[in-house]
């Protein structure tokens, strides 16, 4: 075998066999080391030059250098091809991202959600948020609110009475489950001096259980006591509240009504927030939605709480949180609120 054949054979073996057989950049580099490394097969050929005649040496040297240059080029080309292949392979992969295990958000109960929204609005209007006990003195729930033992208004609140603890000096009839949040008014007026601006939100109880009543429900109550507080201020406050709560200006109107602890007393309606008063299915075409009761604190209540009714006047209002929640979320059946079906609860994620 001539030297030419050896050189051509090595180059051929490197380019056509080994490099072509290399499937990774590491393989290709190993081939390069095998032929072009310090002890590579092509590199070794240069060492045979010393045994050649000078004129032959130059020619042979040039041949070898050309072969090595060709080998380098072939190596670079193979590397480029392999990189391209690898890239194509990586991008050719399909990853199925179409199915993610659900992580459903938790939810707040619509009553909590509404209660918080109410607290936010009233807090921003300068009202302090307070609450009181659920098991309450009949005195605070009734008597101090101008609802005496024989007052027919005790019919209006069908009351759960709580048995006094055995051996206590209290009699049956002294303790009740509060029928409204109004005893919080009494508690506040007994413990704070005017000016008073509070809202009380909480659970209340009545012996009533049908499609539209639950024996337990939730109320909000507002109270303002100061010198020269007027009923016009009550109307202005309720207007500010409904407009802030529904984030649009909504009229408030009063209809005369009766609650023993206020005088004058009224029921108040707001312009329907869903149609702006034009009439829709929610407001049954009337443009108005009934909210709750309101009025000027009865002087008898002030007297029971040790506040001078000549010096101070005040107003109070109250309405149902559950009803407001039902209105906000268009829930038509009160019973859904308290039975705990997750398919209902999970509908209030935000």
């Amino acid at each position: 075998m001539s030297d030419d054949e050896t050189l051509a054979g090595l180059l051929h073996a490197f380019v056509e066999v080994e490099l072509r057989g290399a499937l990774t950049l590491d393989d290709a580099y190993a081939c390069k080391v095998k032929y072009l490394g310090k002890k590579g097969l092509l590199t070794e050929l240069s060492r045979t030059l010393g045994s050649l005649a000078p004129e032959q040496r130059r020619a042979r040297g040039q041949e070898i250098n050309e072969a090595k240059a060709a080998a380098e080029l072939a190596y670079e080309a193979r590397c480029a091809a392999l990189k391209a292949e690898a890239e194509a392979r990586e991008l050719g992969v399909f990853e199925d991202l179409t199915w993610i295990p659900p992580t459903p958000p938790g939810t707040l109960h619509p009553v909590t959600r509404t209660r918080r929204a109410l607290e936010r609005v009233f807090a921003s209007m300068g009202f302090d948020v307070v609450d009181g006990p659920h098991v309450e003195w009949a005195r605070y729930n009734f008597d101090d609110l101008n609802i005496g033992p024989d007052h027919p208004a005790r019919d209006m609140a069908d009351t759960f009475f709580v048995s006094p603890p055995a051996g206590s000096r209290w009699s049956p009839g002294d303790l009740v489950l509060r029928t409204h949040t109004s005893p919080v008014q009494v508690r506040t007026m007994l413990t704070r001096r005017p000016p008073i601006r509070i809202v009380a939100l909480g659970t209340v109880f009545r012996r009533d259980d049908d499609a539209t009543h639950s024996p337990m429900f939730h109320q909000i109550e507002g109270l303002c006591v100061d010198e020269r507080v007027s009923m016009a201020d009550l109307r202005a406050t309720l207007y500010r509240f409904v407009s802030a709560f529904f984030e649009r200006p909504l009229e408030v109107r009063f209809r005369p009504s009766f609650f023993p602890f206020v005088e004058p007393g009224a029921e108040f309606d707001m312009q329907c927030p869903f149609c702006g008063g034009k009439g829709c299915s929610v407001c049954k075409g009337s443009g108005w939605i009934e909210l709750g009761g309101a009025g000027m604190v009865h002087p008898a209540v002030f007297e029971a709480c040790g506040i001078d009714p000549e010096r101070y006047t005040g107003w109070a209002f109250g309405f149902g949180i559950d009803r407001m929640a039902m209105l906000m979320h268009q829930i038509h059946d009160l019973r859904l609120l308290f039975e705990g079906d997750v398919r209902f609860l999970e509908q209030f994620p935000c």
Partner: protein
Amino acid sequence: MLISRVWLAELLGDAVDLAPLSDGDLTAALTGLGLEVEGVTRTGAGLETVVVGEIVGVRPHPDADRLRVVDLFDGDAVRQVVCGAPNVPAPGGRVLFARPGTALPGGMVIGARAVRGVDSVGMICSETELDIGPDSSGIVVLADPIAPGTPLPDAIVGVVDTIIELSVTPNRPDALGHVGVARDLAVKLGSLWRPSPVALPEVPDDPGIVRIEAADACGRYFGITFDGASIGPSPLAARVRLHRLGLRPLSNAVDVTNLVLMQWGQPLHVFDRAELGEGRVVVRRARDGESLRTLDARDLSLAAEDLVIADASRPMALAGIMGGDHSGVASTSTTLLLEAAWFHPAGIRRSARRHGMSTDSSHRFERGVDHGDGLQGACAEAAALLQRWCGARPIAMHVAQGDRPGPVTIAFRPARCSMLLGMDVPRPDVERIFRGIGVEADASDPASWRCVAPSHRPELEREVDLIDEVVRHHGLDRLPMQASPPTAEAAGSPPEVRMRQRVTAAIVDALREQGLHEVVSLAFARPASVAATGDDPDSPGVVRLANPMRGEASLLRTHLLPGLLDALALNVARHHRPVTLFECGRVYRNAAHASGSGPTAEIDAALPDEPTRAAVLCGALPAGDPDRAAIDPRRVGAALLHALARVGARATIRVAASPMAWLHPGAQAEVVLDSGVVVGRFGRVHPQQLVAWDLPRGVEAAYGELLLEHVPDLRVPQFAAVPRFPGSSRDLSLDAAIALPVERIVSALIGAETATITSGEDPPRLVPGELGRGAVELVEDYRAQGIAEGRRALLLRMHYGCRTRSVTDTEVQQTHEAIVEAAIVQLRAQDGHLRRR
């Protein structure tokens, strides 16, 4: 309270013309007066084609014994009508004839047809067919010879009417009769109206017949004796009126009392005087052992608080509530005693409540009827009607007086009115309103009027009551929106109260962030569910309702678990999805406790404790790994820890020191604050609880709760230096008993660190890993092939670092070995086979 528009218009007469007002206008005016309209019913529509018919001839039906063939003149022509009624009058009698094409109130349309082969046109109608009364036993036969062809609405007033249902608030007893509504309406419509006076019969006074023994309970009593009464049906128009107002016509004498009740709001009673022993009336308290059988056949045992209308010896009526069964008029009665009285409201209310009775009469007396002109007017009206309808002849008056409330004088300050309303009402308007409702006002001192309230408005007692009248009639819709400037800033809640509000809100938010759904359960509990959580339902600590709605839920909850299990059971019965719930609410327990300070503290100390709990319940009939993960008790524990972390509270978990009987004995743990306080617990719900709640086999549930009173206040996080020098970690492989809790191993390792490192400046120590991981982490808990029964292979990772320098491998290795050796020695007391792998 049902109000007839026709009757209102009749009463108002020329003073106020209601004709221009639509029903909607009338409704709006009543609503504006605080007389809430609950419903409006129009009656008599379509009855214009029912006309008065005169019977011309009656003959038997050839084919049917019960039917008759009637020839009837309807004003236009003689019609042949087949009629099955038993009371077809003789020729000349007047009946009500529905012409063909009439649509009756029940929906039936009258035509012409053959009845058993005889042609029949139109129909002769009964009261029920026309909806003018309750009688369906025969056709209506008119008493008066009204011209044939007269349409029914013209023949009988009140057939066509608008009936308005009012919801009358307790402060308006006057509006429980048409007179009161008419008076109010007249003022609202800018007029002034007084009921037409009716005179009492001019008969001799015979005062000895009526005696008031309980003067404090009966303020005034009018009795009138009649003779020659004949008891029978009332005139048709009166019966139609009663029917329209929802009352059943009975007999003329009783109908008189009912109509006067609806007109004046004054309950009356008519006794058969022959039934009254010695023909006398004694108004007195009941005596011990006395009883009374009422008109509705209830036997009442009377008590000394009950006021009765007695004769010479026995109670004849429970005063103001209901008559006795032999006190009323019978068809044979001829001598009557009409009673019109005023009873003290509170007494009637107590009696009615004790006997569980509520009648039209007691309803009005409880609220306070007029003891003045109204009482007399009602009495006179009834006397006149008894004469007219029963032919009764008044022969004697018996008037007796008890303690009658005196006139109420109220000072009214116009300036106070303007200030309280935030609106000026012109003086002439105020005067007109007062005059209209019957308040006599003496404005000679313009700053403070001297006003006397009328006896028909017993609830007018104070100045605000008059201000209420002013604004009610002037119009609440005229109230401006005008803020009152505050005199000072209002006080707020104490900081500790606000803090607890914030903590509770943060806990609720945190639980919701854990993918849980908030539920609100009723706060009531059954004895069985109280027992389920380890409380004796009969113990004095459990709060008991004196009058539960349903016998079962007679207690207040002591725990949130039962309510959540109820919700789980409901969900499991309805669908098969995992149920992941939380609730934040109060539980109740009688306990002596101190309760803050201030004027309510002493009395509040006797109220039950109402601590707040936040509880999590996850349950399902697991169908696959995601379900299992959703109801894993560790998920519940993680949610509790997350909630605590959300308020900045650091807590750890340990095996329950005092296990709860309602959780699985081998699967429960406590959540402990760094302070050592147990703030919560969680675990698997005891299988017996699931059985007790009738949950299907295979349902699993995990429960956890936080005691909010132990959750610490939110605090401002304090910065600690971030480690600046790289640390190093070592893994520890242990062969440990499954029964040896990881928490114990981790505590032992951390405890050993403190004991091991004694000297040196800034030695390597266990340091928390990044992203809030502990200094010791559990990497793997492996318990399958190659691991002995009851044991597991644990892989723990421990993080080391120094404060001021980088650690070296050698020193970390030394420290690590020392800690591990010391910990293993200590833990061998609990797991003799504990060793490194």
